[in-house]
């Protein structure tokens, strides 16, 4: 007997059920077709304010501008204030912004280990926990938010949803039922507490996550 059949038949024997029970399969499929939403925390009406508060609690920094055109200047300001290099890899969708005018050298490609800064958008953002939802794809490299020491994300206020549940619903509405290869929920810079339970910001992922909210207050 294969390992698979052996394991499944032991599970069935212990449950006291037979293989190929269509009624049990149908019951499970019914759960998948009408997923039950579980209990959730109550959220305030102002999702942008909630998102900002929770993002800052996870050690992200947050800025806000009115229009996408203002993003390069906001990025330049952030980098200059911290003495960080004005050189970045960005998602192609953001390549059309006037980075040169803001004095930033931006390459529209996936980030590699040498890029000091990665600039991404986000699929949407989660107000409950101050989290970015990043969906991998041809134009949205996962490495850009992961390898550089500084990750800057552009977050349209219109894309802030209450919770993970709404994030998944939006993904399916816009990209189809199947999930993209990687859905990464990112909440602030990487950290570790593995030495004496002392929290250190900056483990394997970025040391800094800076969020630029775009849209009218």
């Amino acid at each position, binding site marked *: 007997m294969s390992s698979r059949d052996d394991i499944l038949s032991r599970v069935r024997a212990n449950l006291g059920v037979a293989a190929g029970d269509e009624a049990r399969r149908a019951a499970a499929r019914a759960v998948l077709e009408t997923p039950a939403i579980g209990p959730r925390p109550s959220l305030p009406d102002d999702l942008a304010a909630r998102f900002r508060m929770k993002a800052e609690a996870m050690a992200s920094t947050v800025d806000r501008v009115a229009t996408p055109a203002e993003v390069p200047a906001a990025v330049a300001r952030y980098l200059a204030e911290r003495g960080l290099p004005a050189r970045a890899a960005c998602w192609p969708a953001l390549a059309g912004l006037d980075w040169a005018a803001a004095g930033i050298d931006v390459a529209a490609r996936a980030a590699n280990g040498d890029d000091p800064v990665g600039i991404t958008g986000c699929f949407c953002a989660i107000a409950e926990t101050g989290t970015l939802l990043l969906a991998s794809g041809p134009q949205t490299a996962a490495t850009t938010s992961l390898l550089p020491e500084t990750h800057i994300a552009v977050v349209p206020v219109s894309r802030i949803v209450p919770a993970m549940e709404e994030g998944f619903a939006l993904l399916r509405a816009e990209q189809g039922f199947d999930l993209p290869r990687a859905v990464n929920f990112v909440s602030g810079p990487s950290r570790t507490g593995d030495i004496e339970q002392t929290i250190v910001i900056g483990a*394997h992922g970025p040391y800094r996550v800076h969020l630029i909210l775009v849209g009218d207050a």
Partner: protein
Amino acid sequence: MRSQAMFFQRRAGEALADPRLQKNFAGLKDKFVGMRARAVANYENDFEELRDAGQAIRDRVIDNLDVWLELFEEKATARGATVLWARDGSEICEHVIAIAQRHGVTKVTKSKSMLSEEAQLNAALAAAGIQPVETDLGEYILQIADNEPPSHIIAPAAHKNLDEVADLFAATHQQPRKTEIPALTREAREVLREHFLSADMGISGGNFLIAETGSVVLVTNEGNGRMVTTLPKVHVVITGIEKIVPTLADFATLMRLLPRSATGQEISNYVSVCTGTKGEADADGPEHTYFVLVDNGRAGLVGSEFQAMLRCIRCGACMNHCPVYQTVGGHAYGWVYPGPMGAVLTSLYTGIENALDLPHASTLCNQCGVVCPVKIPLPELLRKLRERQTERGLRPWSERLALSVWSRLAQRPALYALATKLGVRYLNWLASGRDRIAVLGVAPGWTAGRDFPAPQGRTFKELYSSRQEQKA
């Protein structure tokens, strides 16, 4: 990992006598317990309702585990992953080595996987000429400390302090010794970054498998889980068969429980839902994805009186809150999983007869039961294990004799009254006027580390009958 669970008493004694270890674990207790309490208090709704929901989700899966496994397998396969099955640790090693050889892999980066500890996978990989590199900072520290076992499921190097880590890094990395935690963390980041970028294969555990989408979920703070699932061309997921949750909505519910219970965070820094393989035009991701679904004892719990143990989502709250774990640390338990959940799992997965002390390494105070996010009745399971030991005649003769004497006495009230009366006289004689007994004559072990309180006045039965007389 070969179980050392039979040596709990000796190892616990050594841990108690090691002041450095005692200091390291004291810090662990303060931080994790306080952070969880704050996170639960700050939850903007009823946390008990959330625990009930978590339990219901896990029970629904285990009650129909065969069906959910098949549905997961269908969906994961449809998304381009290969699903393999392993009865035990040696089959895990066979699968992983075969995958590595098929793809010409010479180095693997590993995100934390407790199942690879169950299987002693690192030793098997090394023997096959494949270099395993642990990338969770705690696991990395243990790997360079000559492959020490983890002492906590989410803080594996909790037993090591800063000085010990500094010494290890200086010796291993051939760099000047650093003494600040951020500097040590950066040094590990730089060493491990090279490995992330050059490994051909990533191995991870899985916090959840989602049947609806055929996905694996990895929850990390360091970002190593993202690295091993993004950079190498092959990704191998090793998980227990019980890790399935039906839907994305169920997963979202469990994510409100897991980080709060584990580290006291509302959310972990990185939660990655990985599905299938890299698309043709995708910028990154593995070209080959494998799931190794592991039994290694789990199927035996299904339908048994211990089935509730399969709900476990591996948060570590039970050990953080356990007065025994807090005192003796993780290594005393002798196998992969320590604390209350470890005492149950070690007994059931490695054999009740091979872990005789573990069900007794508990005061049954129920701290673990109260904090468990999926409401596993851990004290009840520990008590059931004690019953199984007794039924199988696995307890020492002295304990069996004492209990049979007690049960005879307890069934004969007059004899019982006489025995307690004599007992009290004996204890009063031992105390000879003091209120404490330094050495208990019949059971000197009991007073090896504490005094025994001297009886105060008469026995309960004597007091009770005199009260009854007064009333009459």
